[in-house]
């Protein structure tokens, strides 16, 4: 399989393209959305993109268990980030009564 074929038919390149696009969609969410929760979801998406790439590589490395272990850790870390991130968002909401990141901009210059 080469080129477009590989992408379209589930070759390694295909997974990577999906991973990269997912990654950039996540980044786009962070850059374009202003609701903190959305941005947070964008970050989760970016982590997930890394997961897709990781596991795709693992598959093409003959089912590398090392990568699978790393995937577990990444999930754990993602959960941690979720916990702390959401806690921070809640903390901010308590003070400002908003989850609009653009309105949480009193620290500047």
């Amino acid at each position, binding site marked *: 399989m080469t080129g477009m074929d590989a992408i379209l038919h589930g070759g390694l390149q295909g997974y990577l393209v999906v991973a990269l*696009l997912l990654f950039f969609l996540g980044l786009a969410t962070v850059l374009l959305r202003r609701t903190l929760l959305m941005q947070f979801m964008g970050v989760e998406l970016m982590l997930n993109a890394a997961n897709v790439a990781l596991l795709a590589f693992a598959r093409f490395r003959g*089912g590398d*268990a090392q990568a699978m272990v790393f995937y577990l850790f990444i999930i754990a870390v993602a959960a941690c980030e979720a916990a702390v991130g959401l806690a921070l968002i809640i903390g901010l909401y308590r003070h400002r009564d908003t989850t609009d990141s653009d309105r949480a901009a009193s620290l500047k210059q």
Partner: protein
Amino acid sequence: MFITFALITLLGALGMLLQKNVVVAGLCMVAAFFGVAGLFVLLANPVAAALQIIVYTGAIMVLVLFVIMMLNSHQEEEAQASHPVQRWLSLALLAVLALGGVKLVMGSAGLKALAEKGSTMPQAMTLEKVGTALFADHLLGFEVAGLVLLAAMIGAVALTKRNL
């Protein structure tokens, strides 16, 4: 199959990006996660697929949705009236990066070689393999991951609760 799951994933993500309603956006993301889980199945990795659904969709996304409800921020307060520089620069940048990424993937000789070599290699990811690797090679990582979880827990509590 691949193209289906890939589309589910990407469209879900795109929907999340574009959807004004946060709850709906969250649901779009759940779809994307399902798509990813599908991809994992295609990658002969049912364990990962299961974990993806359990942890991501089941735990993280529920948590997020819960917070969304709690904070009562169903909708963004204003439409996407962000600064045009931010918006257009972001879009331009993302476009360039995405195109560049695709080109990169296609132009990578190493990747191509790997793809060709890897398609012939054994593929299955079993729990046994994972367990061995986890407890033989990554004992340290395992412990550290535990610490990360503990720290995150303490942190989250410290941030939201008056006392432990």
